[in-house]
């Protein structure tokens, strides 16, 4: 394995890790507030990608400006992801709030099944992509290898911005502080006068937008087919389990670890590509049963 291959693999790995991180962020937020893994999050990713592709296809005859198209990606993700996330919380999960977490998990699984068919009805099963946008942002040459700016700079940049933005939001804004309080203890938060239901809806909208953003960003790089959402949700679960549930910085590191190791393995042992995230997860959980960055939790009897 020479230097160029390592460079190539790391760029691939970092851009894949950025997408994984965006999805994992939403998952881990919802998991913090609701104590539930939202299986339907994979559908939000797919919906984000498909709707961004549709919007881009509609825009192409009207404009040739790249910034407008980039903006379109974000708008599609925020609108579709935010609305769907809110709908999931308000229209579905709210009615199962007092049930056992496992039953809530199954409800999100059911929602995933419904959304998966809905997506197939809207966009069919032919592959959808928007490749020309990635080409428009130009290329750069590094050590004799040509990279697309989109993959090298833009996608990781957005992921880092999302990370910084979320950290800022959670630490310094009122809504963010409320989310943290509800994650810490729902009952006490309610007693302090925080509207936990509103915080829940907000979290879902935010998480949905982040998941859909992951999809929207990946649509210029890969083609979307049915079943992609399922793969993404399972992989990003591996990320948050490796990191420890509710760990945002941990998710960033775990996403990088998993993304890079997966990209490296493509060049060494291609058979293991799909397996890599789970191998990492199992290996980490064998040593640290609750993830790399987990904190000890009080045991309630």
């Amino acid at each position, binding site marked *: 394995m020479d230097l160029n291959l390592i460079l190539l693999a790391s760029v691939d790995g970092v851009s894949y890790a950025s997408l994984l991180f965006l999805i994992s962020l939403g998952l881990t937020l919802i*998991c913090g507030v609701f*104590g*539930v*893994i939202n299986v339907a999050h994979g559908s939000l990713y797919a919906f984000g990608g498909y709707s961004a592709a549709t919007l881009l296809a509609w825009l192409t005859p009207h404009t040739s400006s790249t910034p407008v198209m980039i903006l379109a990606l974000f708008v599609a993700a925020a609108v579709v992801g935010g609305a769907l996330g809110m709908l999931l919380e308000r229209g*579905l999960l709210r*009615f*199962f709030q*007092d*049930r*056992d*977490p*496992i*039953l809530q*998990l*199954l*409800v999100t*699984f*059911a*929602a*995933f*099944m*419904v959304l*998966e*068919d*809905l997506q*197939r*009805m809207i966009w069919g099963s032919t592959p959808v992509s928007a490749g020309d946008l990635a080409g428009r942002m130009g290329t750069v040459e590094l050590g004799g290898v040509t990279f697309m700016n989109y993959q090298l700079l833009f996608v990781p940049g957005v992921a880092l911005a999302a990370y910084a933005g979320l950290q800022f939001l959670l630490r310094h804004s009122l809504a963010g502080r409320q989310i943290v309080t509800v994650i810490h203890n729902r009952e006490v938060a309610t007693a302090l006068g925080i509207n936990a239901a509103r915080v829940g809806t907000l979290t879902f909208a935010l998480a949905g937008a982040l998941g859909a953003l992951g999809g929207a960003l990946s649509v210029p790089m890969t083609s979307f087919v049915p079943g992609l959402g*399922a793969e993404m949700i*399972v992989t990003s*679960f*591996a990320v948050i*389990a490796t990191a420890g*549930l509710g760990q945002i910085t941990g998710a960033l590191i775990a996403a990088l670890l998993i993304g890079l190791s997966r990209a490296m393995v493509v060049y060494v042992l291609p*058979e293991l590509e*799909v*397996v890599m995230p*789970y*191998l990492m*997860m*199992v290996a980490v*959980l*064998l040593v640290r*049963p*609750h993830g790399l960055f987990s904190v000890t939790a009080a*045991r309630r*009897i």
Partner: protein
Amino acid sequence: MRRPLVPLAVAAGVALLLVAGWIWPSARVPLITFLCYGLAALGLTVLLRAGQVSFGHAMYAAIGGYGAGFTARYFPGTDALVVLGAGVLASAAFGAIVAAFVTRYRGIFFGMLNLGISMVLFALAGKLYAWTGGTDGLRFERPTFLGMVLDRGEFEYAMLGLVAVLATGLGWLVQRYFVSSAGQVMLAIRSNETRLEYIGVSARAALAQGYVLSAVLVGLAGALLALEQNLVTPESGYWIRSGEYVFIAILGGSAHAVGAFIGAAVFEAIKLGAAAYFTNAWQMLLGLTLIAVIFFAPQGIVGCLRRTPKARAPLDHGAKAAKDQDTVPATGHTTKGGSHDSLSY
């Protein structure tokens, strides 16, 4: 569902299945599939009683299937029952290994770790083309059945008979396990594990035992399905399939072993109906049904059926429950309704 009625209903059901399979040969495959799904869901019901859901149990169906497939392929002339046994043995062995570390986890981690392991196996089954035949699956010759060389129709009928016997026998055995003290410990894991540990019972050991039992049941179902088709594909271990098994277990309910089979019957009916009338939306229909079941009948169909007679004649196997009192704190098996805490199925 009063107790004397259950054996009668089961006997009538099995007789009806066998007659239907005899009269309509085309009904044999759907009937075998239904019973195999029931067996697999029974495996998940075992875990469900401990409040655990596995999103990866279809891997045991795949292991059972590949175990059977490899045996039939590399040892030609092996009898169907030996092939079946090899499949079950493979999934039991793998289940025991996985149980050793998966039983440390509960809830979401338990479900998702199983999912992770099943995804590894699914990917390997699809990628290791030289051994598993890749995504096309592993095809093998139809083995002899108890030494008899049968043609396709006869083999299917023999399989139907075998599956019916296995489903009845194992359903009865698993129900015996449910009311035994070992089975009651599983209920205690669901309601309060810490208290269980305080009285000196190892929740991990009990869960591991249940886990291997569930792996065996799902593995048997997978091996049977593979035998019936003479084919095993990675698809049989995909996580969507695991989800279907969980779905059936929830739909049927975990209060009685017969629930898994009732759930499987309803599931197959929905699937067949949806395939006929809503070809593109059967998954959506299943999802909506699941939401409705969890909302209106979190105890499943069996839970609904049991509620009324229980109210009239409580503790109809009170003797057994009383016997178990010394090992297990009073858990909700005979006092159904799930009102004492938030856990309800």
